[in-house]
């Protein structure tokens, strides 16, 4: 297979970036998208050019490092799945493919297709945890948790933290990311003591990072590689409303 790539190149945050066209030829349909980029890079290096910088690590869709917007869709056309799980058989031979970084103000660009997503860490740091000191935990089976709740918590906890939700959102909102963590812990008994505090602090941190607001377009759930449901955003809204009332009531 053969492709024409239009790739965003930008040396550093200060330099102006642009789309640069490359050819990828002799590509097997069983090659992954990132391996195709590897091959392009290998050729660039040998030709004396700088390779395209892009992020990836586990290459099996779980670490959340890869962060490409391919043909205008976060992680490319094969939803649900991360860019590293995208295979060239998904494209038509001879197609033109536009590759851009994840774009959002809280994701400043580092180089080419690499962006800084530490904003997401800071949201979790604001309260996305259970304070459980090592050594102080009770026997694991002392609190039964209905299977249904454990399953729902697991569905929310499956978030891989890639930031595609914010990258795809027309408003660059990170509500789905925040909703997933808030919901995960709100579904479990262990998450109850800090429930009010957690949602208030995490939402404040999220807003402080400069993410946009949710206008319920549900684009986030459509591109989420971990199949996080946008109904968790409704849950987040609910959690937030209840927590705000509780706070008002001095609870």
């Amino acid at each position, binding site marked *: 297979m053969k492709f024409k790539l239009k790739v965003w190149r930008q040396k550093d945050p200060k330099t102006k970036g642009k789309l640069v066209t490359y050819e990828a030829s002799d590509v097997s349909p069983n090659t992954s998208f990132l391996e195709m980029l590897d091959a392009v890079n290998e050729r660039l290096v040998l030709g004396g050019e700088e390779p395209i910088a892009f992020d990836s690590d586990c290459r099996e869709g779980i670490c959340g490092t890869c962060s490409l917007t391919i043909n205008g869709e976060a992680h490319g056309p094969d939803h649900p799945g991360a860019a590293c799980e995208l295979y060239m058989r998904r494209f038509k031979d001879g197609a033109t493919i536009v590759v851009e970084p994840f774009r959002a103000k809280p994701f400043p660009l580092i180089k080419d297709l690499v962006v800084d997503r530490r904003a997401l860490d800071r949201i979790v740091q604001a309260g996305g945890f259970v304070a459980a000191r090592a050594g102080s935990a009770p026997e694991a089976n002392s609190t039964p948790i209905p299977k249904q709740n454990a399953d729902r918590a697991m569905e929310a906890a499956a978030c891989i933290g890639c930031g595609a939700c914010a990258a*795809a959102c*027309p408003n660059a909102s990170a509500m789905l990311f925040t909703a997933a963590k808030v919901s995960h812990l709100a579904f479990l008994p262990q998450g109850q003591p800090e429930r009010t505090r957690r949602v208030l602090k995490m939402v404040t941190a999220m807003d402080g990072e400069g993410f946009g*607001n*949710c206008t*319920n377009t549900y684009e986030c759930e*459509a591109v989420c590689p971990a199949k996080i449901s946008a109904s968790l955003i409704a849950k987040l809204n609910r*959690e937030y409303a209840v927590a705000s009332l509780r706070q008002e009531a001095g609870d």
Partner: protein
Amino acid sequence: MIVAVTGVVLIAFVIGHLLGNLQIFLGPDWVNSYAEHLRALGPLLWIIRAFLLVNLLVHIFFTISLAIENRRARPVHYTKKDYVKATFASRSMALSGLIVLAFILYHLAHFTVRVTDPRFLLLKADPLNRYDVYSMMVYGFQNPYASAFYVIGLFLLTLHLTHGTSSFFQSLGLNDQKLTPRLAAAGRILAWLIFVGYTSIPVAVLLHLLKPAQQL
């Protein structure tokens, strides 16, 4: 959240207003008496109007400030952007809202303040000495340009509501995984019912199914 709450008040008004207007199909007596009743509310009517106006302003103010924040959240735009699920309606709420606002202003000028159509000044009171709203509407809609603008305005309002109605439940956290798709569908049906209901009046006028109760 404020947008959602003010939005739902406005939706309620839109539905109420539609039910009032549809009385035109029951004849001049119904709709003129409905208008007279509203008018008879006196200061209360003004309170309701003021409430709606404030609601509208709040709705607009917060939406616009949110829209500004949202634009700021992506200073560098994508060269190519495709949407998988986000509908055109959901992505164009600010735009459709602003056009609807223009429509509302025209609508108020047209039928409430009545400054756009000189013929309305010629209307006489109906036999019971009430303002002949019925004839006013019919004459108003006999102008195909005015009607066309109404239909366009209503279409945008509908677009706005297809997303806005179900969005309300999401923003207030009143839905869950099972409810979300159903509410979205229900919201769309409601919006289109509103569209059909409102546009039926100018359409009926243009098709001469409704005729003025008095000649000018």
